[in-house]
């Protein structure tokens, strides 16, 4: 009998283009957009995408060397023209090496280098730009100091050898976290939780249309009715996982993004997918037990998912959140699912490495499911 329930649900879902769009097209679109949008935010060696105008008012050997070290080229404009360009949004920021730069450097005073930003420019990118100039300035100062002591120590190569940065930046993981490794799990988890919409509207429709009552009058065991809803959507979840991995692996590179690495532990991936599915299905049934109409279910399920997504680091990656907000992601089961998937994809975690998140997800799902079933039973 359960097989008939599963087949019926999958058949009905196959004929529901809106549900299929929400469950498959929506995450695909988000993965494509966000993988590209966040690509440079995750790259350790990313070039800055800021359009920076440079004005060298000092025109000294030191200021030219500073520009060289910063990898910047002075523009043809003076400061006023550059500021006007900034106001027209022809640039994101303006770097000004003030007149008297070389003199201040020699006198060991604060040299005049300033960054002026267009108000809409992301702070994170500006910080990266400032770091670039700080490093250049630091190198320039080191070169000056080494130049001063080179004759004393009798090493003519001291300047060229000593002033270069020795710090390299590498990821601890075998493959560094990329935007696609963040976006695929994030929007996959979001889409998995979005089954709350079709599941809750289906349950409500069955209640309103008397189908549930008819099944009960036929003495269909309640467990069959419940599993008849959950098992098909669990299969849908597994299909979502496969589909979104395929999008990350093969579709994202087609539009210029990085390819998702599939060098993961299959058992860990399966466990995380199953635990996330249980949590999502439990929440779905819980919402269905409270909503009285399909419209209510759509609004409540959509709203809860968006809130859980925002809290869980789906919309804004946890890595770019402040520390306080990062701790808030622990409140959202979507955050637990996302952490577990990122562990699998970026940290090559085995099943033992994701057990904590999986237990939390299963516990959440079980409690929500139990509450939902109890409420539905009382309502019947």
């Amino acid at each position, binding site marked *: 009998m359960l097989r008939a329930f599963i087949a019926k649900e999958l058949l009905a879902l196959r004929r529901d283009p809106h549900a299929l769009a929400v469950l498959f097209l929506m995450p695909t679109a988000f993965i494509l957009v966000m993988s590209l949008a966040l690509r440079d935010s995750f790259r350790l060696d990313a070039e800055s995408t800021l359009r920076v105008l440079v004005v060298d008012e000092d025109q000294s050997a030191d200021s030219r060397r500073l520009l060289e070290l910063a990898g910047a080229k002075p523009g043809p404009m003076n400061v006023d023209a550059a500021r006007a360009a900034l106001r027209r949004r022809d640039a994101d920021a303006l770097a000004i090496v003030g007149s008297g730069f070389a003199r201040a450097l020699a006198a060991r005073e604060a040299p005049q280098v300033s960054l002026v930003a267009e108000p809409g420019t992301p702070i994170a990118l500006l910080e990266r730009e400032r770091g670039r100039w700080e490093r250049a300035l630091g190198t320039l100062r080191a070169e000056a100091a080494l130049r001063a002591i080179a004759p004393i120590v009798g090493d003519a190569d001291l300047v060229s050898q000593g002033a270069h940065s020795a710090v390299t930046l590498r990821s601890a993981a075998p493959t560094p976290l990329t935007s696609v490794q963040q976006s695929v799990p994030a929007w996959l988890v979001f889409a998995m939780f979005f089954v709350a919409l079709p599941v809750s509207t289906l349950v409500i429709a069955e209640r309103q249309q*008397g189908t549930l*009552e*008819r099944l009960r*009058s*036929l*003495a269909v065991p309640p467990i069959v009715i419940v599993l008849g809803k959950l098992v098909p959507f669990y299969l849908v979840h597994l299909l979502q996982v496969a589909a979104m991995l395929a999008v990350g692996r093969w579709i994202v590179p087609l539009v210029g993004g990085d390819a998702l690495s599939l060098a993961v532990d299959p058992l860990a991936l399966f466990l995380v997918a199953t635990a996330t599915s249980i949590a999502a299905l439990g929440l779905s049934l819980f919402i269905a037990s409270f909503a009285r109409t399909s419209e209510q279910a759509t609004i409540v399920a959509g709203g809860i998912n968006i809130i859980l997504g925002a809290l869980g680091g789906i919309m804004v990656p946890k890595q770019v959140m402040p520390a306080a907000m990062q701790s808030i992601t622990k409140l959202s089961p979507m955050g637990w699912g996302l952490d577990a998937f990122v562990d699998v994809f970026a940290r090559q975690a085995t099943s033992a490495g994701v057990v904590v998140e999986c237990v939390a997800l299963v516990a959440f799902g079980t409690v929500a499911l139990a509450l939902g079933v109890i409420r539905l039973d009382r309502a019947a």
Partner: protein
Amino acid sequence: MSSADARAGLIVSDLHYRYRPDAPPAIDGVDVRLQPGEILGLLGPNGAGKSTLLRLVSGLLPPQRGRIERPPAPQFALVGQENAFYLRLTCRENLAFFAAAARVPTDRREQRVEECLRTTGLLDLAARRAEHCSGGARRRLNLAIGLLADPTLLLLDEPTANVDPQARAFLLDAVRALRARGKAVVYASHYMEEVEAICDRIAIIDSGRLIASGKLEEILGAERRLRVRVPAGTVPPAGWQEDSTSLWSKELGAQESLSAALAQLEAHAIAVRNVQFGARNLEDVFLSLTRRSLRD
């Protein structure tokens, strides 16, 4: 609650049910008996307790007092007011699914689906999705699903609600055919003409109480009430009761003739504008019993 005592029919004894302890009784001491090959018309206005009684009989509500004997599921079937099936499935797919839910043996499912499609005239629409079927076809599909397990007892709740006359006639014929095959049918409706047309026995329910029960002829012929319409403000002599504005009635004794009763009014100079006596319909019966219209 259910037992083999009723075999293929239904016995309901002293049934009581309240939705809340402080609410008035939804079912108040109802007794019903139904034999195989009989159609019992359950008549009453909306909210009278018909659907509650059927939900109690089908086990969806637990009786708080009283006894229900009926065949076990799926040898009985409840066909409710709603079109309880899946709109995205075709008629055949719906029937196949509910056949599995009703535990029709696998090797008989296909045959039962075809039989039910034929019985309800849905063969031509078998491959059509339910969402694309007309209202009448949906009601027929609703009935067809109820027939899948070949139940001995059918509980039909307003089966012709919101259908056109043609579909209504088809459904009534289908119910008659079920009686001919020895099925016991409870036919709940507030359409008295349908109940009069197909039911062998009638139970009138109002405010949860069974206020009349018996064969159709017994119920229709149980009283010798004369009804007259008189000018507004006119009051007939003692013995007459006012049913509604300008409408008065009097129960005639066995020895009292119709002409004598009318002569009495004439003697009081009452101008009678309309007279009704003798053959009644269920609407009249219901009105006299409850002072309410069936359409209320």
